């Protein structure tokens, strides 16, 4: 079997084994946190494609996530294509639809706004994210401020876990292989120096839009997973804070490191749960204060993030093997 198929399959099998253990080993609270870790990993990896690898700054990731979540939730609550026992095929179809619609939105947003640079791009993507949220808030068809409830989910944790892992692996290996292709080198060159990239014959606008579209596809998928895991979504799930959360994960993990994004997703999802006991002692919610302080401190003390643009194997080779 070719290596490009073998590695993901092995990883998937290992994750399934792990999921099987979790299914019986831990309670529902921890299981839900595990699912959130996977969803956040997808979110962080997809944003890393734009913010880390292509060097653009997007602050509207929650908007694309919202589109994916709403599409999938709306489609699966309004129409039932398949009988109850084949419900997961329906969820699969709606997830892909959600991802595709999100990437269409990414295309529409990206086409005009990617002519802008740096700060301006950040503000415009922030604006688009807010516009999507305000529009959803005013759309009665999708429940307005009440949102959508009773979204069908999987029969048990094992199914949701394998399904989320399936998408996380697709996202990971897709971006991993993309960045190591000649196409991906185009993305990297846009990050390093846009003018030089253009001089070398790379269509920078096209490259940026491609990165944006791919990234919004996976954000949409993450949104759809979020909708099916939590069974309830409303516009307030997808505020500016959600986008900031995604940015924090990318920055903390290292812009341009997929394993860094996953590590940061673990950290950022688990930290609030760990701080819950602190909240019981102090009586006030210090989580967000610590979050924001963390963001400032990372930028001042370690601006390249935990992993920089290295992946876990590189770091392994550099620090562990060398000392052995």
């Amino acid at each position: 079997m070719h290596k490009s198929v073998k590695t993901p399959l092995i990883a998937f099998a290992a994750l399934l084994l792990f999921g099987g253990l979790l299914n019986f080993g831990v309670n529902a609270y921890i299981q839900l946190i595990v699912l959130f870790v996977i969803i956040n990993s997808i979110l962080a990896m997809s944003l890393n494609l734009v913010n880390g690898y292509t060097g653009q700054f997007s602050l509207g990731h929650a908007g694309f996530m919202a589109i994916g979540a709403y599409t999938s939730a709306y489609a699966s609550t309004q129409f039932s294509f398949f009988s109850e026992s084949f419900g997961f095929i329906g969820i699969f179809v709606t997830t892909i639809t959600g991802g595709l619609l999100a990437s269409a939105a990414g295309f529409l947003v990206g086409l005009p706004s990617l002519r802008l640079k740096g700060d301006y791009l950040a503000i415009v993507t922030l604006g688009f994210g807010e516009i999507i949220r305000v529009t959803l808030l005013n759309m009665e068809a999708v429940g307005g401020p009440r949102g959508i409830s009773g979204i069908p989910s999987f029969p048990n944790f094992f199914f949701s876990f394998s399904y989320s892992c399936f998408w996380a692996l697709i996202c990971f290996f897709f971006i991993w292989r993309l960045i190591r292709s000649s196409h991906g080198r185009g993305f990297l060159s846009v990050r390093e120096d846009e003018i030089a990239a253009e001089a070398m014959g790379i269509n920078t606008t096209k490259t940026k839009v491609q990165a944006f579209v791919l990234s919004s596809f996976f954000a949409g998928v993450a949104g759809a997973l979020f909708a099916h895991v939590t069974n309830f979504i409303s516009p307030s799930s997808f505020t500016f804070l959600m986008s900031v959360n995604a940015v924090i994960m990318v920055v903390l993990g290292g812009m341009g490191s997929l394993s860094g994004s996953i590590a940061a997703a673990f950290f950022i999802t688990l930290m609030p749960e760990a701080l819950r006991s602190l909240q019981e002692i102090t009586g006030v919610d210090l989580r967000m204060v610590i979050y924001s302080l963390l963001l400032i401190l990372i930028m001042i003390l370690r601006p390249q993030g935990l992993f920089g643009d290295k992946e876990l194997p590189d770091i392994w080779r550099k620090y562990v093997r060398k000392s052995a």
Partner: protein
Amino acid sequence: MQDFVQHIINGISLGSIYALIALGYTMVYGIMKMINFAHADVYMVGAFTAYYVAKWTGLESSPGVSTLLLLLVSAMIICSVLGLLIERLAYRPLRKSPKLNVLITAIGVSLFLEFSGQVIFGADPKVFPEVMNQFVIANFGGLELKSSDVTVLGVSLIAMVILNFIIQKTKIGRAMRAVSSNASVASMLGVNTDRVISFTFIVGSSLAAIGSILVGMKYPKIDPLMGMMIGLKAFVAAVLGGIGSIPGAVAGALIMGLSEEMVVGYLSSTYRDALAFGILIVILIFKPTGLFGKYSVEKV
């Protein structure tokens, strides 16, 4: 017709508040080439300073010009110190790092102030004390000219005149203009760039403090997240006028205030926040330099 004139009065008074905040954004951008996201939260701190000063000194019960002045001065001092601290602790260590890092730090500072505000002041909205007696100055057949609108306009005009004087006539103002046009050449000619940047933060934060009290007079409800939306709108105003340009910020803010008032008056108030972003996106796509901005070519 009457409604229309009333909307114009409200729009101008709202626009002049936006202008005070937009000036802070535009000055910092002009000098450091960064968006100071935390500016809107300095404004929030200004409003809370005034609230607590009025409460502790018992000035709530005696509205008048002296109360207004005292609150203005105390909020300006606290905000200047805060602006200075933010610049020192968060932005100065990053003076030489990529713009993206500075932007992320600015967002971090903004969130930090917002959530610390929620922890310290409480998340529930508070009622801003009455600073000046509310009365109707003139009544032209149903058309009301309220004292608060006149105060808002008067105070912001005075502030802008003083700002203009500082920038155009004083030594530090000349240094600010020099740094804004070319920071490295200015520092070669003996301008202390760090001091100019600190001064800019003091001026910008003071203006935000003035803005916060004027908003408190007009819409007397304050909460720790109040800066978020008004900050974005003021930023849009600064971009609309051409970021870095001081007259541009004032013009852009007046346009924003008027158009927002018209949308609320004649269309629907649910879209008032989407309007700001709509305007922003249209400008950035068709004329990214704004109304008064300078076009600069990137040299390789």
